[in-house]
């Protein structure tokens, strides 16, 4: 419990968010990519994977976030929190916009050189968007944690 004193409630919540992102991606993507490659993305398996991911995320959130908020004192955001949040949103913005720009380039190149890159189907684009969203969220959490730890 001593280590909890070194971390604020907000920092622990960000850590929990980061771990959730990593856990979901380690569960979701290795299972979903074979389905995309085999062209079975509209199968029942997909529904199962998505449902399991959502249920796991909800259970994790209830247990972990509940424990954090029960064990540590919840604090109001102060100016430092807002500054670090803004910095993290900036990184998140760059990552998401960079990703979207990447998708646009990929679509254009795919249209031009379809034989070399392979057909970009809507499910593939959806998965790339999910990866970008995940990277963006991870980047946001990491930036916040870096700023909090840098200044302690």
């Amino acid at each position, binding site marked *: 419990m001593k280590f909890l004193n070194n971390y604020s409630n907000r920092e622990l919540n960000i850590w929990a968010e980061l771990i959730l992102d990593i856990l979901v991606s380690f569960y979701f993507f290795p299972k979903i990519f074979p389905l995309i490659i085999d062209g079975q993305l509209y199968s029942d398996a997909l529904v199962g994977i998505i449902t399991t991911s959502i249920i796991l995320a909800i259970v994790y959130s209830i247990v972990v976030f509940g424990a954090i908020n029960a064990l540590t004192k919840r*604090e*109001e955001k102060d100016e430092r929190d807002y500054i670090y949040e803004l910095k993290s949103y900036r990184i998140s913005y760059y990552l998401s916009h960079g990703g979207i720009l990447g998708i646009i380039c990929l679509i254009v190149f795919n249209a031009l050189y379809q034989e070399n890159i392979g057909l970009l189907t809507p499910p593939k684009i959806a998965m790339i968007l999910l990866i970008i969203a995940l990277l963006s969220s991870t980047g946001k959490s990491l930036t916040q944690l870096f700023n909090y730890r*840098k*200044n302690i």
Partner: protein
Amino acid sequence: MTQAELAEKASVTRQTIIALEAQKYSPSLELAFRIANVFDVPLEEAFQYN
């Protein structure tokens, strides 16, 4: 006065007080005034620019 007490009186988190003490964070003018008010000293006595 403990860090937690100062944090509460200045309406910030204890981590912010820790960062201020370690000179790792520059407060806004408003926060600087609030902290100076807590100690009942002028701003220039509470904070100095090095």
